[in-house]
């Protein structure tokens, strides 16, 4: 007991003395890491503790699992200072290693904490090798292709370990790296790097289970100075368009006048012969109009010399629009038997534009036809309902070859006429032909619009069916099928047909004025019938004569009362509505009875 006490005290004192002297047993070493670069060998490194002021030696000992045998590190040198290298023979993938480091000096020793090592999980490959970064030029723009090789020690060929690669890029001045994962590839393309800048590239790798390797040494790559493609294209486009704009502007400037003419056509001034604008401007209105007065007009020659010729239009044999100036009778149109080709004539004394049959038929048929017939009587052309056996528009053969003159009204004083009739007496203009032309154009309804013309002198001469002349509108429906149009027409009562043109064969082409509300001034309308061509003037204008001898009722509904033979009365420029439904279709009657056909031309 005394001995042990003495021993203890001595030990204690020794310790104190040694501490006072500044020497001590070594501090505890620490194993920092054990790493295997290829899963076949591994290296353990430690960090020495305080050496206690005395030379200290370190030794690594390891134990395999489930075995008590302690082995010492086989190789202290290969891996450098404070390390232990285990070669292939000493490395086993099947057992854990229990590793400790012992620091020994003169005063004692110290043992580190043990570390268990499973070789398969401590794999940290070496860095990839031969990192190259080249600039590759492409249509889309240049990019950098980075390529590298696997670390030499890694056995990826057999599949012993598989490596995943990662690279990072940044400019010198950037703080953050841009990282990219390359998977198992050994190359990578980096796009969208800024032009004309230098970039740093680094690569590292990692096995499926294990640690990332260190980054490689930096590889530098410089991007060329290029303009991004999209931008250059836009620049070119912009310049081009500016150029084009300049050229256009200059051209417009040069052709200023003609452009102005094109866009803003001058309003035609009055072009009346003898009309002096200047005088008007000067305010001498009296003199202005004086020049317009034609001496000796209206002509007072005898009317016998005036041949009024009518255009007889037949749709088919059943419908005949007959206008025959010569034989205008005062009879109304009587209903004729369908077999009577001469339909128009018989009843209204030959050339009437009535569709006798149609009228008959119409009466029997629906109301629209009835209406139609009412107007038909007053109309020039008869449009046909289906009863009239399907008007074939313009079946010339159906017509009995009669002379059909189509009264076309042109206002002669108006220089602004659209058409010129080719022949003076286009008596044989067959309306059906016209209709033929026009109907294929899918004009279900062709209406012929007659304008009143104030030719008062001629009335008596013309046989005219009373009733129809009361209707100054010429209706000519070529399309018999289009009954509903007929039906419409009563309400509108008038579909105006305008002469569309005269084609070289001297055929008048009619087209309907479909919009009854077209002419604003059309409210005027006289009850006169202008279905008769008075004459053809020298410049091939058909003057329609107003047939005022029969002043029929202004109402379509009373049209069939025409048969009652209303007494003819002189034409007068009566303005009334033939039909409430058509306010605007009237003709514009100027002061002297002339109809301004221009107004009535369709303005569409």
């Amino acid at each position, binding site marked *: 007991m005394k001995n042990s*006490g003495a021993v203890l005290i001595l030990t204690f004192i020794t310790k104190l003395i040694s501490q006072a002297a500044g020497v001590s047993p070594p501090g505890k070493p620490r194993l920092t890491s054990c790493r295997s670069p290829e899963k076949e060998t591994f290296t353990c490194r430690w960090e020495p503790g305080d050496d206690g002021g005395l030379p200290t030696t370190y030794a690594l000992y390891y134990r395999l699992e489930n075995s008590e045998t302690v082995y010492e590190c086989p190789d202290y040198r290969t891996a450098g200072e404070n390390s232990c290298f285990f070669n292939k023979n000493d490395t086993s*993938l*099947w*057992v854990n290693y229990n590793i400790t480091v012992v620091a020994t000096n003169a005063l004692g*020793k110290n043992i580190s904490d043990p570390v268990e090592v*499973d070789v*398969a*999980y401590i794999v940290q490959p070496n860095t990839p090798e031969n990192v190259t970064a080249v600039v590759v030029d492409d249509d889309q723009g240049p990019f950098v292709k980075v390529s590298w090789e696997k670390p030499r020690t890694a056995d990826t060929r057999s599949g012993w370990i598989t490596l995943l690669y990662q690279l990072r890029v940044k400019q010198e001045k950037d703080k953050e790296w841009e990282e990219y994962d390359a998977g198992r590839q050994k190359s990578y393309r980096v796009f969208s790097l800024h032009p004309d800048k230098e970039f740093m590239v680094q690569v590292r790798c990692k096995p499926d289970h294990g640690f990332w390797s260190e980054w490689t040494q930096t590889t530098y790559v410089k991007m060329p100075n290029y303009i991004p493609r999209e931008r250059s294209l836009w620049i070119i486009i912009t310049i081009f368009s500016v150029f084009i704009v300049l050229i256009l502007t200059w051209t417009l400037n040069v052709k200023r006048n003609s452009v102005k003419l094109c866009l803003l056509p001058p309003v035609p001034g009055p072009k009346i012969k003898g009309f002096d604008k200047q005088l008007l401007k000067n305010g001498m209105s009296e003199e202005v109009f004086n020049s317009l007065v034609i001496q000796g007009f209206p002509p007072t020659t005898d009317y016998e010399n005036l041949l009024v010729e009518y255009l007889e239009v037949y749709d088919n044999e059943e419908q005949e629009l007959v206008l025959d100036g010569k034989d205008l009778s005062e009879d109304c149109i009587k209903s004729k038997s369908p077999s009577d080709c001469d339909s128009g004539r018989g009843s209204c004394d030959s050339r009437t534009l009535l569709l006798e049959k149609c009228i008959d038929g119409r009466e029997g048929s629906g109301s629209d036809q009835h209406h139609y017939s009412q107007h038909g009587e007053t109309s020039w052309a008869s449009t046909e309902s289906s009863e009239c056996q399907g008007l074939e528009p313009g079946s010339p053969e159906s017509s009995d070859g009669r002379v059909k003159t189509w009264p076309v009204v042109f206002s002669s004083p108006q220089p602004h006429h659209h058409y010129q009739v080719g022949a003076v007496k286009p008596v044989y203009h067959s309306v059906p032909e016209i209709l033929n032309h026009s109907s294929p154009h899918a004009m279900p309804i062709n209406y012929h619009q007659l304008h009143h013309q104030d030719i008062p002198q001629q009335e008596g001469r013309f046989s005219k069916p009373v009733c129809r002349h009361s209707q100054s509108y010429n209706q000519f429906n070529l399309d018999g099928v289009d009954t509903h149009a007929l039906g419409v027409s009563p309400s509108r009562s008038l579909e105006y047909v305008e002469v569309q043109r005269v084609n070289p064969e001297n055929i008048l082409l009619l087209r309907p004025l479909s919009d009854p509300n077209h002419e604003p001034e059309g409210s005027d309308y006289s009850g006169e019938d202008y279905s008769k061509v008075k004459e053809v003037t020298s410049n091939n204008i058909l003057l329609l004569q107003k047939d005022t001898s029969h002043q029929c009722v202004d109402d379509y509904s009373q049209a069939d009362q025409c048969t009652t033979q209303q007494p003819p009365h002189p034409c007068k420029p009566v303005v009334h509505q033939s039909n409430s439904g058509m306010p605007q279709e009237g003709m514009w009657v100027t002061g002297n009875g002339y109809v301004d056909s221009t107004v009535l031309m369709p303005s569409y």
Partner: protein
Amino acid sequence: MKKATVLQVCVAFVLCSQQAVTGSPVDCPDQDTAGTSCTISLEKLLERAVQHADLIYRISEESKLLFDEMLISFGMNLHIPEGTMCAPKTVPVPMSRNEIQQISDKWILHSILILVQFWIDPLVEVQASLENYKSAPSALLTRNKWISTKLMSLEQGVLVLIRQILGEGGLLLGGPEEKSDRFVSSDMLETVRRDYSVIYCFRKDAHKMQTFLKLLKCRQIDKENCSYF
């Protein structure tokens, strides 16, 4: 007296505490520590063993192909009749599903071990022999070397597996005394023939090893769903 003893013990303890070996608990990667050492889990062991066997088989195929090319380049045409030159069958191969179901893990492990231990030496010899060839392709040499290395590693693994699964101690077969003797022949053709047969037959056995290990792994890890074969 007693007090003094206790005091001494305490002091001794304090003094010696610095030098005491502290058995701190070890943190095992994925296992609850039962003491101061961990063991690698069975699953991982089997996985590694299967990986070994897979790679060994693959590389042995490659080395056989390389050897064939070499023979062609030599102008030799060795017809190895099926099975004649291979090592005697110490390990019967189960043929049918029934048989497979009847064999035990123990049998599997032992068979694998036998196979592995059988081939370690011949491969080393072949390696030495190949180095003597005039123009053996280096790829063949590296591969052969690789196989030898990995085969030895696999042997260790199988031993560990046996220890773990079967609980047996280190089992080292005395080895088939039927060890093939050092085949030294001056006849080039014979040498080549023997080398070829080693490589050829090893390839077959490597496939056996791989299959057994996969079966074993399947049985051990995926006990219910093992519909291998």
